[in-house]
Structures are given as C-alpha cells and as structure tokens.
C-alpha cells in the first residue's frame, strides 16, 4: 500500500533537538500543528502497484460502460431526412439557381408545400421525437446570441427594455417589438404533418419547451406586439392572442444552440411506428436557409438513457479504457523487464549525477 500516513516528522531532529522548544508531538493543538506546519499528512507516492492498479481499474470499468452506451445508441431508431434541396424548384449549384431558390423562398405567395415519403426501418416505440435539424446555422454567433432581452420577455413592465435587442428592437415609430431581438425575429417556421397511408399521425406540440421557460422566463401576460411588422421579415410569425409563455415553438427556438449544427424539438408522436411502415410528411418549406450553405433535415428518433443516437461516447469510453489497459500492460512489462527499485540511494549520489551530466 502506498498510502503511508506520516504523523511525525520529528524523529531525528539532530542538533536542533537539544535546544528545541519544549514540545510533545501529541500535545500540540490543531492550531499549533498548523503554525508549525506539522499537520498530520498522508503522503501518497506513485508506486508501480498504485498506478498500474488505477490504470487497470479504469480500463476494466470503462470498456463495459463504453460497450453499454454503444449498444444503447444502437437501440435508438433514427430517421433523418434532408428536405431543403428537394423542396425547392431548382437544385443547381450555379448562381442563377441560387438566386432562383432565394426568390422562391422569399416570395410569400409561392406554394411551399412539399411532400416527402419515408420508410420506418425498425419498429419505433413511442414517444417518438420529431426534430428539425439545421446545419451550419450559427445560433451561437455573438451578434445573434446577445440580441435578446430576457427582462422584456418576462414582464410587460419591461416592454421598453430593448437596448440589447439591436437591430430588431423597435419599429420605425419607436414602439418596441415584443419579443425583440434577432433570435425571436429569426424564428423557425417550417411545419410538418405526418401521416401513414391515409391516417394522420398526430404530432403533440404540448410541453416541447422547458417547463422553467414557460413558468418563469417568459411571462404569461406578455403578448407579441409589432412582431414581424416591418421589412425585412425574418422567420415565423406569432399568434398575437397567445402570451409568450404559450408560444412553445418560440421558447424552443430561443434556447440558442452552442453548436452550428443543432436539432430542436418540433413535437412528439405518441404512437408506435411499425417497421417498414411508409409514412408521408407534408412540409411547409418556409424557412430560408438558401442564402447560405445550410441543410434542413427532419429527424424522427426514439430515445434511451443516454439520449438520442450518439456513438461518440461509447467509442470514446472504449478508447480511453483501451489506452489505460495498454499503458498498464506496458508498465507491467517495463516493471518486469527493467525493475527499478524506488528510493534507491544509489541514484542519490550527488557526485554520480554530476558526472552523468
């Protein structure tokens, strides 16, 4: 065992001993031990036994955890469907196609309905989560993430607190926009309707936002005002008769993502979907992601204890565990092949050292 508590550094104080202050080791109070820097201390050292045991146990614990989370991830059924390129008339890479796409999406009058057919690969047990995924969308951009006013959202009293919301703080006649700021202004507004064969599958959009947001962050008496009333119009519009706390899509959107690729909850499907079942998704493709290099995807996913499908954690656990085991074996081998006694005074010769150098 490497942990050797040393309780008394005073054995053999040599020449100071004769005159040292009268003291008994055990008679010292805690304060005295502190002032004399003689608090009892445990002084572990890195013995081969300790280190190798630690590494092996890390390895032994990590590999199963890794396998467990990998299999959990395997059990998640996930359907990802990219629809942004399919739901616009032109798909070319040239400038003309791009501007055509842009004018299509920006024109309010065009019919943006788009129908996608998906096959369920495996049986999906409810609840099935419906997400929309945006790639290369910088919700974490500094200009964007700061452009909000939490106080305004909370209470009508702070309606005019829009200083931080620039450039979407107020409309021309200096009346404040509620909710102000770029984040709210750029609200995602694609909609999905899912049906099997001919039966519609209801998507439950209740309780998709955080309960805390509904309860305290967004006021139940704050109603949208002047929202999307001036050019340029950003994203979705809000129902002005509902308070902010009940605009759950807005609340989800306002929880900004830290990564440029993110998914946000659209709703839940409360029924199971069988394998090989064909489903149809009717998409209202309203949201503009065509001005920049982005992707829009619809995601249907089940969930397990680690959340959605994510192999990273499992692989990382196995890698770290493996490395630890490898290091442990390497250290055991070096210990067997080239043992080096700890604290050997032979290495201490100060003379030897200077010659070595």
């Amino acid at each position, binding site marked *: 065992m490497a942990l050797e508590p*040393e309780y008394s*550094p005073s054995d053999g*104080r040599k*020449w100071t001993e004769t*005159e040292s*202050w009268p003291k008994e080791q055990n008679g010292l109070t805690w304060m005295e031990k*502190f*002032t*004399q820097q003689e*608090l*009892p*201390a*445990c*002084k*572990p*050292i*890195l013995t081969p036994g300790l*280190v190798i045991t630690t590494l092996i146990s*890390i390895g032994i614990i990590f590999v199963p955890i890794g396998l467990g*989370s990998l299999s959990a991830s395997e059990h998640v059924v996930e359907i990802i469907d990219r629809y942004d390129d399919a739901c616009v008339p032109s798909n070319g890479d040239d400038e003309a196609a791009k501007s055509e796409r842009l004018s299509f999406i920006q024109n309010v009058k065009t019919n943006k309905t788009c129908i996608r057919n998906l096959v369920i690969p495996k049986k999906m047990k409810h609840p099935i*989560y419906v997400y929309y995924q945006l790639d290369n*969308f910088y919700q*974490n*951009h*500094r*200009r964007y*993430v700061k452009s909000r006013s*939490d106080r305004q959202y909370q209470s009508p009293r702070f309606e005019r607190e829009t200083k931080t919301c620039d*450039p979407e703080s107020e409309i021309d006649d200096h009346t404040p926009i509620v909710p102000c700021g770029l984040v709210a202004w*750029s609200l995602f507004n694609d909609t999905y309707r899912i049906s099997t064969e001919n039966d519609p599958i209801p998507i439950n959009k209740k309780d998709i936002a*955080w309960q*805390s947001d509904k309860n*305290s962050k967004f006021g139940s008496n704050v109603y949208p005002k002047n929202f999307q009333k001036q050019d340029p119009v950003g994203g979705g519009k809000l129902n002005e008769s509902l308070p902010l706390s009940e605009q759950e899509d807005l609340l989800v959107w306002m929880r900004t*993502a*830290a*990564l440029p690729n993110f*998914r946000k*909850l659209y709703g839940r499907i409360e029924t199971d979907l069988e394998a090989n079942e064909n489903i149809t998704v009717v998409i209202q493709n309203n949201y*503009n992601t065509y*001005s*920049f*290099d982005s992707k829009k995807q619809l995601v249907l996913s089940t969930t397990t204890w*680690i*959340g959605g499908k*994510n192999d*990273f*954690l499992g692989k*990382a*656990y196995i890698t*770290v565990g493996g490395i630890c085991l490898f*290091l442990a074996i390497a*250290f055991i081998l070096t210990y067997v092949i080239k043992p080096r006694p*700890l*604290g050997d005074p032979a290495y*201490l010769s*100060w*003379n030897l*050292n*200077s010659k070595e*150098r």
Partner: protein
Amino acid sequence: MKRYIYINHDDLAQDLYCDNRISNRKYTLWNFLPKNLWEQFSRFMNQYFLLIACLQLWSLITPVNPASTWGPLIFIFAVSATKEAWDDYNRYLSDKKANEKEVWVVRQGVKKLIQSQDIHVGNIVWLRENDEVPCDLVLLGTADPQGICYVETAALDGETDLKTRVIPSASMGIDFELLHKIKGVIECPSPDKDIRRFDANLRLFPPFLDNDMCPLTIKNTLLQSCYLRNTEWACGVAVYTGNETKLGMSRGIAEPKLTAVDAMIDKLTGAIFVFQIVVVIVLGIAGNIWKNTEAKKQWYVEYPNESPWYELLIIPLRFELLCSIMIPISIKVSLDLVKSLYAKFIDWDDQMVDLETRIRSHATNTAISEDLGQVEYILTDKTGTLTENKMIFKRCCIRGTFYGNENGDALSDAELLNAVSTGSTDVIQFLKVMAICNTVVPIQSNTGVISYKAQSQDEEALVRAAASLHMVFVNKNGNVLEINFNGLLLRYEVLDILEFTSDRKRMSVVVKCCLSGKIYLLSKGADEAILPLARSGQQTRTFSEAVEQYAQLGLRTLCLASRELDDDEYREWSLMFKEANSKLVDREWRVAEVCQRLEHDFEILGVAAIEDRLQDGVPETISTLRKAGINFWMLTGDKQNTAIQIALSCNFVSPEPKGQLLLLSGKTEDEVCRSLERVLLTMRITNTEPKDVAFVVDGWALEIALKHYRKAFTELAILSRTAICCRVTPSQKAQLVELLKSCDYRTLAIGDGGNDVRMIQQADIGVGISGREGLQAARAADYSIGKFRFLTRLILVHGRYSYNRTAFLSQYSFYKSLLICFIQIFFSFISGVSGTSLFNSVSLMAYNVFYTSIPVLVSVLDKDLSENTVMQHPQILFYCQAGRLLNPSTFAGWFGRALFHAIVVFVITIHSFVFEKSEMEEVSMVALSGCIWLQAFVVALETNSFTILQHLAIWGNLVAFYAINLIVSAIPSSEMHTIMFRLCRQPLYWTTIILITMAGMGPVLALKYFRYTYRSSKINILQQAERLGGPILSLGNIESQSRSLEKDISPLSISQPKNRNPVYEPLLSDSPSATRRSIGPGTPFDFFQSQTRLSSTYMRNSKDN
C-alpha cells in the same frame, strides 16, 4: 552651501529652516488616493487589467458582464491600498508621538516646556539624563565641570557603547544661568547624512568670550535619536531639525525588493501577453474574413451594410477581452496571500526561537520568502553574527608565564589566583593596567552592584576580568579612579588619555598614583604596536609566541605595557601634548606624534587573550549550507588573523590539504594588481581540482581592486566560492554585495550591527541577528533571527518550501487560466469566429477567483519532502537555487497540459452534447464542470502531502461548485435557471464528466509515473526513500565511508606538514611574497566540499540551459 545659525535669537531664522516636525509618511490625506493609484498602476500587470476593465465597458465588444473584471480589480486595489494606508497610519502615529514629546527649550530667555515639533533652528534645548535628543544639537553646556557628557548612539549607528561628547572650548565654563542668555552664530554646512562629520565654526557674541572662531566637530554634537546617559543635564543649540537631521537625511524609503520568482513570473506573464496578442491578431483577422465572406450571407445575423470606421477593430478587441483571462487576475491576490502566510510560518516557527532571549524570528518583509530558497551567496559579518560578541578574558601570559592554558580559563587558573593572593608584583601590575588603562565608566547601582559602560567590548572584558581577580575598578570621580584591590582602596589621578586610533593601534593613559605621587604611563594595544617599543634588553620573544599561540586559537590578543615617568619628563611632554591638542590643523597627526614621544621603552607586562565565542551550531550551519551549494563570504572589520582563525573554526575554509588560502594584498595599485593576477592565476588552475580555495583580502587592497581592477576582481569573485574580507568598512560591504548582485547572483547578507545595515539593505535578502549590538540591523533587515544557526532552517525549510509552493501556485494559476481560455478560443471556431463567450459572466468570475483559487491556496501546506530529509540532504536545495521548478521549460509543460486538457474538455463536450442537447447554457456548464473536475485532480496529483485541509479544499471545492451552481440554478432570474438541476439528472452528464476526467488525467498520470520512476529527479528519489520507509542511506553514512577511503589514499599529502608543530605554524604570512600558504592540519578535512563544488558547477550549467 552653508547655513548660519543665530543662537537663541527668537526672531531670526524662524522660517528659514523647517521646524522639528518629523515625517516618515509616504502619503497625506489628500494625495493618498492619486499617489497610491499611481504607484499601483506603475506595475505592468495592473495597467493591463485596467485596460481590460476599461475596454469591457464598451458593451459592443464585451463578451461578459464588465463586473466580472471590475469586481476583482477593485477588490485587489482596495486590499493593496488598505494595507498601504494602514502602514502609513502607523507611521503617522509614531511620528506624532515623537513630534508631541515635550522638551525644555529656551524661549525669550526663559526655559519653557514645548512640543518637540516646535523646536526651531537656533533654539537652545535642555536635556536631562536619559532623554532622547529631539534634533541635531551643538553642545553648549553640560552638568560636568569638564564639559563632558555621554551619549548612547545605538539608534544611529547600532553601537551600544557610550560615547563621550564635549562642549566647544568657547562655551567652556559658562555659568548655568548665563547659558539661557547665550548668543552667537554657528556656521555649518547644509544638512547631509554623514553621521561622522560635522565641520562647523562657532562664534559667541559679547559679553561672552569673544575670541576667534571656535571649530566644531562631530564630538561637539548631540544627534537626533541618541540618548543622553550618565550626565545630569546638557544643553545645546538646534542646528538641524525635522527631516533635515543627520538621521532624517539618511533615512530613505528602502526600494521594494523583487524576488527572482517574481521576476520569472513577470517574464512568463510577458510571454503569455505576447502569445495572447498573437492569438488576438490571428483570430481577429480570421473573424473579419469570416464576417465579410460568411456572416454577410447569414441573414439572421443582420449585419448592416455600412459600418463605422472602427468596425475592423471590433472583432480583435472582442478576442482581446475574451483572451484577457489568460493572464490570471487572481495570481496577484493569491501570491500576496500565500506570501504573507509564508512570513507568518517564519514568525510562528517554534524551532527558530532564541531560547536565551525568547526572541522569535520575524519576517519584516513578507514578500521575498521564495528568494530564501534561491540564495547562492551568503555574505556574513563575523563579530556578533558568527560569534556571540561576548568578549571574555580567557588566557594571559604574564612575564613568560602562561595562565589558563590547562583549563582554558585564566580566571579559574589556580596558579594565577595564587599569584594574585601572594601579591606577585608582575601580576598586580598587569591587573592594574587591565583595570586602569581604559575609558570604561563604572556605574554603581543603588544595590551596590557595579556595572561597566565601555566604548569597546574588549575593555569591558579586561575590566571585568580584573575585577574578578580582586582588582575592582570601583568608581570614577572626575579624573580620579578608585580601585579596590583586596579591600585596599587605591586612587589614581588620570593626567592624560592618549586615545586609541586605528593608526596607532594602542591607547595609553598617564596616571599619578595618589599614594606615592609617582607617574605611570600605562598602555595596551596590538602586538605590532607595543612589542617593538619594548625597552632595550627586554626579550619579547615569549610574548610574540604567546600572541601567535593565542591567535591560533582564535582569540583576540592585547599586549599590556607600562613605564614609570619622571616628573620632569612628564611635565615637558604634557606641555607639548596640550599644545598639540589645541592645534587647529593636522591635530590628529600632531597628537599622534607627541604621543609617540612618550610611548617608548615600555616594560612589557604580558599578553591578554580575549575570546569571542562562536555561536552554537555555527560550523554545522555553515557546512550544511555549503553542502546545499551556497557560497559564503565573510566580511569583517576585524583583523586578518582573527578572521582567518574564526573562518577555520567554523568550517568556513577547510584546512590543508583540502583548503587553500590565497592572499590578496598590497598597499599600492601595482602591488594589488600583481597580487590580484597571481591569485587569479592560481584560482584558475586550482578551479579544476577538487580543492577548496578561498581568498583573503583586506580593506585597503579591496578599495584599490574595486576601483581600478573591477573586472579582474569580479572574475575572482565568480571563481571563488569562499572569501574572507577583513578590515572592510560598511560601504565596502555594500559594494561587495553590489558586485555579486551585478553578476546575477542571489545574495543574502547577514549581520547584527549598525555597520551591516547598508549591506543588509543592499542584498537581495537581508537577515539581521537581533544580538548584542542593538536591533539596528534587525530593524533594517527583511528577516530577523536570534541566532546564526536558524539560517539553516530559514533557508532549507522556509525558503525551500516557499519556493516550491510559489512555483506550483503561480504555474497552476496560469494553467487554469489558459485552460479556460483555450476552450473559449476553440469555441470561437464553431461560433463563426465572432467572439462569443461560451461561459457566462458568473461562471467566469467564480472560476477565476473562487473554484480554482481556493484549492490551490492550500498548497501552502504542501511539503514535498519532510524537514528532516531536507536537513539530511541539503543538496536538494539545488532544485530551488537553479530555479528548476519554475522556468520556461516547466512552464511549457503546464502550457501543454492546459492545451491538452482544453482539447479533451472541448472535444468531449461538443461530441457528447450534440444536436438536441447542444443548448448553450448546458454545454457551457458541462465544459465548466469538466474544467473543475480536471483542476481538482491536477491539484491532487501535484500535491505531495495531503493534510485534512487539503482534502477539504480540493474535494470540498468540488462539492461547493455543485452547491453553488445548484443554488444559482434555483434563482429564476439567473441565466442558469434550472440548468444544473437538468444536468445532474442526466446520466449523459455524469458519463461525460467521468470521461473528461479520465481522458484528461490518465495520460498525465502515466507520464508523471513514468518520469517519477524512470526519469526521477533527486526530489522524487528522496520522496520514495522517505515514504517507503526503507533504509535511508543518509549522507552521514556515505560521508563516513568516503572519509575513511580518502584517508587511505592521501597519507602523503598530510604527512608533510605533520612534522611541524601546528600550534606555532603561522597561519598566513603577511609578507606579500607568500601568496600561497597552507593551513596546518588539525581539523578533519571535509570530503563533501569537493562534491559541492562539482555539483554546484553542474547546477550552474543546468541553470544556463
């Protein structure tokens, strides 16, 4: 530049010169804030933080709430300012006390009691016995009819003996009452700080004696802060007042000392600053490019088309603010805190308490403890530092008979006691000289106990010894001395005193025996000043042999002699002496010449040997510290032989054949030059040999060498590990310190007297011994200790631990700042290089000043090795001396670790919390938790000994982190509302944290283990040896083995000098031809000297790397 002072003239010169208000204050009430702020902002780090704080006020660029910088900044400044204000307030209080002290001053011809601060130049001040002198005075009258008074000047120069002061001849014999009305003018120089010079003239106005100008010297003055002793009263005219006194002028605010560690930290800070600027420029450019290419397309960001002129600067400035945490603001507070704790540990240390005086060690300067661990040169005073400065009469040789040789103490030598009781004339005459030939003042207390006040400790020792041999010097009544010899009262009238000067090296008195009327000349002095003056026919061989023998033993010797004078001879000489004494020009030289006319044909009575005992543990201390690779220089005002003897007896230099002394001497430039070259040559040759070479230099040669051959002398100083400088003045001591400092060595000066003050202030570390020569040195020093031997503990324990702890603490501070900063930088790459902060203001501030500062603060309790191990293996100090634990390469290690950990935290966080989990606040909190866990384990891994406090701080901090964040998460208005609750419920959070911790610590642990076991440093080996409890082969064992080995192979080298009697072997010839002289054997040579040499070169080499 002169000033004319009109004595006792109330109207004149009132406003010309300042009043006597003393002020040691640095600030006034009005200038405190601006001046203090100005001083604080003269440090680079503070300017930097201020700039950052100001930039943060611009909300366009600030990533976080400005309060996160302003809060700590204001706190830090407030702490420093409060400390300064408190110190200044205390100075103000002590000034006030001195200023409001009441003194008697003549105003309008009447004595009045006024406050000290109202004294003006020209006022006549009256002092009574034991009064403190309030300002610099020219003495006008005393209670003594001879016009003499005694002063104690300890506060001024540290000398505790009494000095005599006389009134000027012009005011001699003026009646007590008339002194009130005295008028006159004093012409004196403008104030200066020379306490040994006062060249002025006095002229009294009628009706007082209106003779010519009366010259004034320092002997006619009473300087501020001296005490009047043994004199009923004295009065004088104020010449310098207030801060213009000699004391006030020499008082300077000592420059704050900066430790090597501080300098290194500043350097590293500079490097980090440069790195930061580079990062800012790169990211700033990248950010602007991204903005212009990508961000314009991101419609939701709504970049305006036209932008203000400073648009290009915004992103770089944002990154500057984001990266500003790279330089940890907490490091200053943490360092200040732990440094004051280091100082407290020194104050508290029970093993550094002087048991006799109960004086504790004290760290006056709390900021330089780390330097103690990096000392390379120790410059030590001899008397009172290495020795106890308790002069004790030990042996004597009277007319060829040695007393005290058997038992080492003449006072208990039966033979001598017998001789005294039988009344041997030689012995009695010898004792009489001991008792009479001095300037000692006996003071009889009420209880009848006689104590002596003497100018020199030697004289006091002689008088005491005489007293214990029944020749008691009872009383001094004017000029008549009373001696009680075995109950018989002898009276002697002192006719003249031929004073001691360093040129004459002897002093004599002419006394008349009141009984027989015979006149005697009694002398004592150095052998070379007395023995050649023996009467023809007297054999002085035995005396010179005695002197040699005593010097060999490290005793101070004095030769005593006497001569009976004829009445006529004396009368004739007396006239010449009076005449010489009244000369205005060349007085000293003339007096010396006249004295010489009387001092001849001596009857040599004998030699007295006085011991100045070494302090306890001095040889052990010196040998331990030399093993630790510290070089010793001895700087003493004492003479060469004594210095060398003391050096030998305290392991300072080793005797032959290991040691070798080279003499550097000469009276002229040429001689010194030749001598210096010779010494250098020898030094270069022997430097390769494992030999302990030291050089000896006296003050005169040193003066020339420093003036004309500074380069050569510097080379010598670097080559030589040991030096003995004798007969050096205080300013030369300071010059030598300066010389070593200019070669970039860390110097520690240790001394006890006023003459060491300059050296102590000059050195990197000044240590004062609170000894018998007053507290002057201790007060000026950074550390004061009671005994020389505490130096071992001060350096090896306190210095070493302080260095180790600061090295860890400072690098760790950078590590944790870099860690979080790297994460911010990485995050900027996935946030469109726009300068978004991943962490919120609260987290950032708490991370810097709380989560990461508390655990590391308890590293002040960390001990890598136990005190015993360090004491047994002092060589381990090399690691501190060479700065092995804090230098650019160790720092690079920490930098790398910060980078690695940042990558681990960042990569794992953004891959675990992807897609629907990538909510900003959550990701930020996961990354922050990862950092906190990692840093807890880093501290744990780097801690060598865990006391309960460390466990509490490290793991308690982790618990506190969660507690605090859970509390903050419970506050609805906070940005982090419910975040921590949500996270703690998720298994994903915990698996991620464990993964981060293990992925971060695993490789670090493995690397550390590998180096610990297979590339172990000496510290590691000693740790292993100490803690595995195996047999520690201590140095003692190795030492003894090697010694026996050495003895076997080197009989040749010691056989040669063996056939000469070591006692009579002269130590060191003074003749210039004998540059190399060996020291006789006798003490065992030290094997480890050679090893330290080697290791020290090794240490130097590695330092250069």
